[in-house]
């Protein structure tokens, strides 16, 4: 068969942050690497909210600060609780280069370019149909009736883990273990962004909102400032959102954009893009899934390596770093004599030792905590009602306790309040 002579040391499925990080690390070590991506360009199928934590990625790509498409360093964090047309916010400002905003398409493209410059091959518009499995060992990939072989396959196919499902290596994902992110990108001039959000040149804001702005959907809204646009969207827990959604999810985002508290920030804007994507929400490590086997490793979203704290999301850096660790595992297995599950099991150890699994374990109760409906509904109401009574007092200012009592109207007791507070501070 024509082309049957193509053999690689490693094939990486998916040119997102996980795949390209794995491929780049391997290519730099002299491995013959092929990356296959089903989108027209790297990053054309993935999506994120808007913010990336730099340090883990810089470990993988040392030239991150020099040449990566960094839009703005996040210097302002704002968390808001919304109730009707009232909003109470907590804001933090600090000027360190810890996380930045970007377009994931641009970042993925940049990473793929690093792979090619390091000697790897990146092919787009290639949809892998399945793994070639012989004697229980993954030997390569099948695309239509064509086969390409390799010593190891790194699966970084993202949350739609069709390959892993087809190979019977993992169970099908269910709505209870997935979130749904929906986002609009609104074009706005650099000057307007900096003026409207009170930012210096190159500075950005990460803004999360909860409350009735979500119209009863379990989840939160986010806003990130890019170079000359804004990413605005929501993340909902898919399982419970499906039961409650009264109309298409895009309508919720539409109303978010037109919300009287938000609309003024991007009135001059023009919508450029609408996108939606699943987000892994595994209850780690309650769901056992093997991230390695004979001839394969799983990294990134496909491995469920994403942290959603409600006030913060860590996806891209987790993905990138897990790809980096997968590459290290391959290198180690290579020195041990081959890509057997036993040799590749070092991947699990590397993950356990890394910040990724430490974080996921530490915050393993976060998904449960986020199921507490009062967080989305009652507390935003309560805090705004109290603030309203205190700040919008016309003649007499009530004491905070009296404002609380009046706002609470006996709806929750002290016990519930303290227990919720305890749960939240213990979970996140």
């Amino acid at each position, binding site marked *: 068969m*024509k*082309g049957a002579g*193509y053999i690689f040391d490693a094939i990486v499925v998916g040119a997102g942050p996980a795949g390209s990080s794995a491929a780049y690390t391997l290519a730099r070590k002299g491995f013959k690497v*092929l990356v*296959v991506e089903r989108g*027209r*360009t790297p990053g054309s199928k993935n999506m994120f909210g808007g913010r990336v934590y730099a340090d883990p990625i810089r470990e993988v790509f040392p030239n991150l600060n020099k040449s990566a498409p960094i839009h703005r360093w996040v210097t302002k964090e704002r968390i808001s609780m919304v109730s009707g047309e009232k909003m109470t916010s907590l804001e933090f400002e600090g000027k360190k280069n810890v996380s930045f905003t970007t377009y994931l398409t641009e970042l993925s493209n940049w990473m793929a370019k690093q792979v090619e410059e390091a000697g790897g*091959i990146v*092919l787009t*518009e*290639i949809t892998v149909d399945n793994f070639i499995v012989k004697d229980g060992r993954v030997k390569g990939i099948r*695309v*239509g009736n*064509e086969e*390409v072989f390799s010593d190891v396959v790194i699966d970084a196919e993202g949350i739609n883990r069709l390959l892993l499902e087809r190979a019977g290596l993992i169970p099908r994902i269910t709505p209870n273990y997935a979130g749904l992110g929906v986002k609009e990108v609104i074009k706005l001039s650099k000057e307007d962004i900096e003026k409207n959000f009170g930012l210096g040149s190159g500075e950005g804001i990460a803004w999360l909102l909860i409350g009735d702005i979500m119209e009863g959907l379990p989840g939160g809204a986010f806003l990130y400032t890019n170079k000359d646009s804004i990413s605005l969207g929501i993340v909902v827990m898919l399982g419970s959102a499906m039961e409650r959604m009264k109309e298409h999810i895009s309508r919720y985002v539409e109303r978010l954009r037109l919300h009287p508290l938000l609309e003024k920030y991007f009135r001059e804007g023009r919508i*450029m893009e609408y996108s939606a994507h699943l987000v892994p929400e595994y209850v780690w490590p309650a769901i056992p899934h093997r991230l390695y086997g004979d001839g394969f490793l799983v990294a990134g979203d496909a491995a469920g390596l994403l942290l959603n704290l409600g006030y913060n999301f860590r996806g891209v850096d987790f993905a990138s770093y897990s790809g980096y660790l997968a590459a290290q595992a391959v290198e180690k297995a290579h020195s041990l004599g081959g890509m057997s599950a036993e040799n590749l099991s070092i991947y699990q150890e590397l993950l356990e030792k890394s910040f990724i699994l430490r974080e996921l374990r530490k915050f393993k109760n976060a998904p449960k905590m986020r199921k507490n409906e009062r967080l989305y509904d009652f507390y935003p109401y309560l805090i705004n009602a109290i603030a309203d009574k205190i700040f919008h007092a016309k003649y007499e200012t009530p004491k905070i306790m009296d404002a609380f009592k009046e706002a609470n109207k006996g709806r929750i007791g002290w016990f519930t309040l303290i227990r919720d507070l305890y749960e939240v501070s213990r979970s996140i």
Partner: protein
Amino acid sequence: MLNIVVGIKWVPNTTLVNIDPRTGTLIREGISSIVNPHDLVAVEMALRLKNEYGGTVTVITMSPPSAIAGLEHVIGMGADRGILVSDRAFAGADTLATSYALAKTMERLDYNLIVFGQETIDSSTAHIGAQVASWLKIPYIYYVTEARYIEDRNIIRVKRALENAYETYELELPALISVAMHSLNPRRVSIYNKLRVKLESPIETWSNEILGLEKNCIGLKGSPTALAKIEMIPKVLRKNEVFKGNDVKKAARWLVKKLLEEGLIEI
């Protein structure tokens, strides 16, 4: 054997392009480019002919270097070789200057069939095929939906679609055919062919240093076409009135009255 040359164009994805209502120009910012979809149909036709009768498929485009991605795509589909005709001297070319440069490139190749798409989605002139054939002094035909090579007579027999009929023609080779849009479904790229792109570098760039074309015949200087003006078609404002209520008879009467008032119907 058929040695086929296909001409393609790398165009902005016009399905994504909006028009600035104030200036009347295309907003190209952030719009990705694609191979003109009608040209993919031409490539598909060429690949089918090659598969059936043997030979080669060479794809040519005249464009800035970004079009290499387009050549990679069609080689991914199965074309053998890509030639990017690219030089600052070619910039600003109208269809005459473009067809001249393309014809002069093709002259240097060993071909007996040239295939073009029907037209491009970004300009829709459908000139290039006919003009290339004229420069090369070879027969040409448009709106081809099927083609058969009859080797012993050195002809290509084509069926072409007109509005209400199919015609069959025989063209002596070398000849040029322009394939009717939507007549074939372009194939997906194959991983072996895409790997070939990366490992065997089947794409060449030909500048005017190679072609040596007279400056007066290329680029802006060789382009007599002048676009005088673009006028936007004014938007028709609709009144957008809605009848409220459930009474069908009333609704019908209301509608008829409105239409009569507007002079849209007569009794």
